[in-house]
């Protein structure tokens, strides 16, 4: 109880510094959490972009039976997860959205000029080689004019997405290091101002452990409060974050970002852990630098 008391007393004696460290740390951690989540999501998106898993297969006939026939054959190709016919209405809607001029032209020319296409989806885990193999087989099917693989089209974009997510992760780590340095400075100044007291209780036979424990408790308290502040701000900022993230991917055919409760829990625990580690490590470094224990 002495230790608890000493820890609380310590915090109340340097209330301004404690509040600064708590809220400064919370701001850093909140930034870390949102950037970290974002880069994780970008990395995940990279694999999940639906467009990159699909290929458009163009059929050279508008005959319904021919299209159906091609569909059955495509479905039999190994390495194809699913396939479906894209209706002419769907195709014109797509044109209207992305290529309005073309759409206007096709309206004048009538239904017959609209190519009949199939949308083929490859499994998530298919590698480039087997996918190429499947694409070649599809191409060989009678009445198929060409196949347009989304992965080829999105290759460059996916590549840059990967770098974006790496950048985000580096930024996250950098922010955490900043937090660590802030904590180091904080605890170093505490040890400096309290060195008289430390010397005194040492002369009364305090062990290293009992000298360190109050500060350890203080570090734990402060990181707990920091974690609570961050998690609360995430709870309230969740909707806003989701919106911001989802604006990023415009028309790439992305999966919208959702923070499920399970993931939210994991993120919250990670925040607490990161705060705790930063505080405790900061305290330990300060202790070693001050040669107090």
């Amino acid at each position: 109880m002495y230790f608890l008391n000493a820890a609380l007393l310590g915090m109340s004696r340097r209330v301004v510094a404690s509040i600064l460290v708590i809220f400064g740390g919370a701001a850093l951690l909140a930034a870390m959490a949102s950037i970290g989540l974002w880069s994780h999501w970008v990395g995940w998106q990279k694999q999940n972009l639906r467009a990159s898993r699909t290929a458009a297969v163009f059929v050279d006939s508008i005959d319904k039976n021919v299209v159906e026939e091609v569909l059955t054959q495509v479905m039999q190709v190994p390495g194809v997860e699913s396939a479906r016919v894209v209706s002419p209405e769907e195709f014109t809607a797509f044109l209207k959205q992305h290529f309005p001029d073309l759409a206007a032209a096709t309206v004048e020319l009538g239904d017959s000029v609209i190519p009949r296409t199939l949308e083929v989806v490859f499994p998530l885990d298919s590698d480039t080689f087997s996918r190429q193999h499947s694409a070649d087989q599809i191409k060989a099917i009678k009445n198929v004019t060409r196949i347009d693989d989304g992965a080829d089209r999105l290759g460059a974009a996916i590549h840059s997405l990967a770098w974006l997510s790496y950048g985000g992760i580096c930024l996250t780590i950098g922010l955490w290091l900043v937090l660590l340095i802030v904590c180091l400075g904080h605890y170093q100044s505490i040890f400096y101002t309290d060195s008289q007291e430390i010397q005194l209780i040492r002369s009364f036979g305090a062990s290293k452990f009992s000298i360190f424990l109050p500060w350890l408790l203080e570090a734990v308290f402060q990181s707990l409060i920091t974690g609570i502040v961050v998690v609360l701000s995430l709870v309230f900022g969740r909707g806003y974050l989701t919106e911001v993230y989802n604006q990023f991917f415009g028309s790439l055919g992305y999966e919208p970002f959702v923070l499920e409760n399970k993931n939210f829990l994991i993120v919250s625990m990670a925040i607490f852990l990161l705060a705790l580690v930063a505080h405790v490590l900061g305290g330990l470094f300060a202790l070693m630098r001050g040669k107090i224990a």
Partner: protein
Amino acid sequence: MLISLRQVAKAYSPNSLVLRNVNLELAKGEFLFVVGDSGVGKTTLLKLITAEEFPTDGQVTFDGIRSELDSSKLLRFRRRVGVVPQDYRLLKDRTVYDNVVIPLFFGRHGTNSPPVSFMGKGARKLVEDAVTNVGLPVKILEARVRELSGGEQQRVAIARAIINSPDLLIADEPTGSLDHDHTWTVMDLFQKLNLKGMAFVVATHDREIIRRVRKRTCHLSGGTIRVDDREGACIF
């Protein structure tokens, strides 16, 4: 032997010995005055005994433990010793209570002191007894040390040193800031505690104390113990 110094020398910087050839033995329950001119090394000798400083040469042992060798035993030894530093070393921004109660955090380890939790009513009672014994009113406990006079601060330091009923009390000029009456309150208290078995090492300038208390007296001069007067009969 509670304390024993053998051929001890101490230098703070390489070429200037403060103490040399110091041989001293203190039995359990013994009372010892250390006298000598200012700057002769009384405080240094006391710091060697409390293992706050370590000897440059020779050996200091506490109850058979060599200070520089065994740090965990040293901790336990320190908990059996009460110290009144020459500069008091009080936490100036805390209350008197907070200062006096500190030694109880680490438990009572003196041979004739029952353990007391520093949280319960028992601790409060011990703190009150300690300040009353040094002639301070109980209401001073809530005051901050910064607000006290020099003599009051000195007595707070004494109260802090005795609260644990240590086996050995080391006091460096414990009456340096006290008036005549309070000096004798403290000295009477020391003698009473000594009768109960607490050993004392007291550094002092006060000839009247030496004359009236009549205990073993070590005279320091020229960096060593010139006279070790067992009867306290020799008046310097």
